């Protein structure tokens, strides 16, 4: 009997361990990214914005990732860029998600209205579709031309560009939820449209946008890098992965591979971690809470 009762217990424990591993493993790189973003600039061996050696030192003991065309330490710059890219992407993801929720809710609730307001909201919905059809980097280039390049303006530009996706996700949910019985019931109790939108529609419409926020984060990282690569990013020598890749691309063509390679790897890792592992983590946690 003892044997028959121990086997299920072991199986339960192994299932628990397996679940913990599935949840915990994705957490490690996420935590590492956060730690590097927070503490990285304090750990760097050299000032990431100062010339510390002759240009184009190959990777080695003194400069692990080598030096760039200016003689700046690439390891220090890659690490320091993590904070900037992660901070810009985090604020962008938050702003785009919050803005997208407000916009999606407003349009979704308003576009069935008759008259001018209905036309207006339906028009805005089509504009959001249009935003989706045009490559984000093109829109960002146009907006940057007017707003200039600084961290606040970059965040603003990216938030505007990426808000449309979030707004469309919320709007799609709102269109389904607004005619649900519980919304009608709330309406019949005399609640105002604004009140029932916030109390009843929002909680049932926001989840897709929240789930998509890590993806927006990843898009923000790539867009920041793309703008930097196209030469309209933050002013030099701000450590930023895209600008570093752009600066090193011509070097790579003539055999100096290191200035572009290390920021490229960092960029890929950050996007993979946030856009793929965090949603996996969230799904795992939601599954556990539902289970």
């Amino acid at each position: 009997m003892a044997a028959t009762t121990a086997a299920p217990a072991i199986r339960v424990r192994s299932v628990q361990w397996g679940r913990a591993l599935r949840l915990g493993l994705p957490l490690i790189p996420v935590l590492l990214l956060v730690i590097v973003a927070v503490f990285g600039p304090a750990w760097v061996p050299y000032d990431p914005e100062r010339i510390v050696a002759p240009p184009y030192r190959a990777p080695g003991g003194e400069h692990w990732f080598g030096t760039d065309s200016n003689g700046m330490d690439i390891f220090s710059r890659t690490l320091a860029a993590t904070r900037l890219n992660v901070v810009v992407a985090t604020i962008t993801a938050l702003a785009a998600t919050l803005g997208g929720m407000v916009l999606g809710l407003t349009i979704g609730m308003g576009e069935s209205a008759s008259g001018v307001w209905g036309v207006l909201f339906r028009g805005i919905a089509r504009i959001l579709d249009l935003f989706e059809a045009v490559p984000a980097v093109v829109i960002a280039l146009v907006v940057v031309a007017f707003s200039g390049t600084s961290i606040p303006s970059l965040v603003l530009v990216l938030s505007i560009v990426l808000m449309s996706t979030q707004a469309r996700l919320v709007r799609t949910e709102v269109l389904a939820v607004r005619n649900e019985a519980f919304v009608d019931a709330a309406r019949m109790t005399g609640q105002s449209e604004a009140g029932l939108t916030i109390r009843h529609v929002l909680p049932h419409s926001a989840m897709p946008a929240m789930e998509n926020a890590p993806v927006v984060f990843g898009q923000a990282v790539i867009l920041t890098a793309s703008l930097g690569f196209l030469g309209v990013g933050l002013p030099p020598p701000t450590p930023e992965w895209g600008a570093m890749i752009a600066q090193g691309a011509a070097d790579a063509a003539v055999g100096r591979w290191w200035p572009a390679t290390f920021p490229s790897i960092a960029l890929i890792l950050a996007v993979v971690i946030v856009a793929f592992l965090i949603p996996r983590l969230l799904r795992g946690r939601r599954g556990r809470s539902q289970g």
Partner: protein
Amino acid sequence: MRTTTGPAAIRRRLLGAGGLVAAAALALAGCSSGTAPTDDSSSTAGDARDELVVATSALPSTFNYDGGTGSGAENEELSRNTMAALIKNVVEVNETSGLPEQNLYEFEGELAESYDVSDDGLVYTFHLRDGVLSQAGNPLDADDVLWSYERKWLAPTATNKSLNNPVITDPLSQFQKIDDLTVSVTIAAEGQGHLLLSLMANNTGYIYDSDLLKEHVTAEDPYAVQWSMENANHGFGAYTVDSFTPGQELILAANPNWYAGELPIQKVTYRVVADPGTRANMVASGDADIAESIRPVDRADLAQTEGVKVTDFAFTNLLVSLGMLTNRAPFDDETVRQAFAYAVPYQSIIDNVYMGAAARRVGFLSPTLPGYSEDSYPDYEYDPDKALELLAEAGVTTPVAFTLTVPNWLPDLEDAAVQIQSYAADAGFDVAINKVSLADYNAGGPAATFDAMLRRNYAIVQSPTYVLNLLFNPDNGHTRWVSEEYRSIIAEANAQSDALAPETVDLWLEAERLRLEEMPLTVIAAVPQLNAFRADVQGHVNRSDNAIQFSNLSIGAE
């Protein structure tokens, strides 16, 4: 069902984008061929070897300068090869470099067979070559010369008026047709003769095919400027534009009507290659005969590459300089400007940005000027302690913050700005770098909107008065520096009978010294031409317009 807007779909797109970035970056890093030549014997451009392939960063934006929009090395090079002037600078082999270079003080005929000067030095008479035909087949005559200068002045978009000051102010009265093949030009002061000849030997003096252009005159375009901006082959140059594919390719063909006869290079194909590293690789591998606008670091590599050569001229007029806006803080204080001149790491820029191939220069005047000497000049070198001392003397709070503007299409200037930012921090300056587009750069400089700006440019006309005036126009000069003393010294020099006489040269040097003391602008270095050639391309001449003149080139053993 695959959705196009849901998180999963977006993640797929994100993966694609990330993958693309990764693939691009890693492919560049991993698949590069370095600078080793692949096959020296297969050097490009077909078997005839009277053809050249040029890897360039951009193609000309116009076929003609007179629209006022033609600045840029690509436009300069196109006009140099498709247009011609009455005279040209004599070319000599420099004793130091062993390379052909322009003599900036001696001239000979180009479209004119010869010229002579009256005894009082005020009348220059040009004798045109007989039988010269334009690219369109029209004969050259005195009317072409007079009409060309009339157009340079009277066309609504003409930019030549200020450039020709003070020697040519009214071509309608100064230029006279003696007969069909003789033109005289009268100037006001004997000492302006060198300036006149320098102006007439360069892009400011190109002669148009007036017979052709008059056919395209309209009420709105009375000198066919717009037409000639859009349509090539309206001059007497060595090459014609054979085909032009914007953004991709430009083909020049030898002009069968060229006055000097058949050219060794019959065809030149420009191919646009955006990446400078790829351009360098093309000349290294033999896929191009010439790579233009390469980076200094690639130039240094190519100098060591078998089958490739770069030109180490004894002197270039390609100057990197840093101008400061003198009519507002922080550079409205002369002492702060002087302090900043001690905060610029000149030697580090030469070593780290130009790989040691640039030369320290402090002034705009050419070192080839007879009697040139820098002995009287203040000695500005990187000295952070001296800079801090001067800032304390000026009574300003440190760090002194300002924005340094650089053009976003010249990576060497961006690198130089980063060097300045890094080193000037130790000298009491907090420099923010502002990268701007061509349009913003060209608009912002003359409009005096930049605290300070880096430039890499050259004075095509190497006459002292032209050089000293070029960047210091009080109305639109990017430093807005106004010095009556400077103007009066130049005026005094202009009034001398010989611009190159020792006492006149002393005046030019005195003007330069004054500019260095008041420091509206610091010259950092003379940089090498950023071109590379296959080793069998011979004859590239060091010109003041820094263009490659294909009529000088040939292909063959060194």
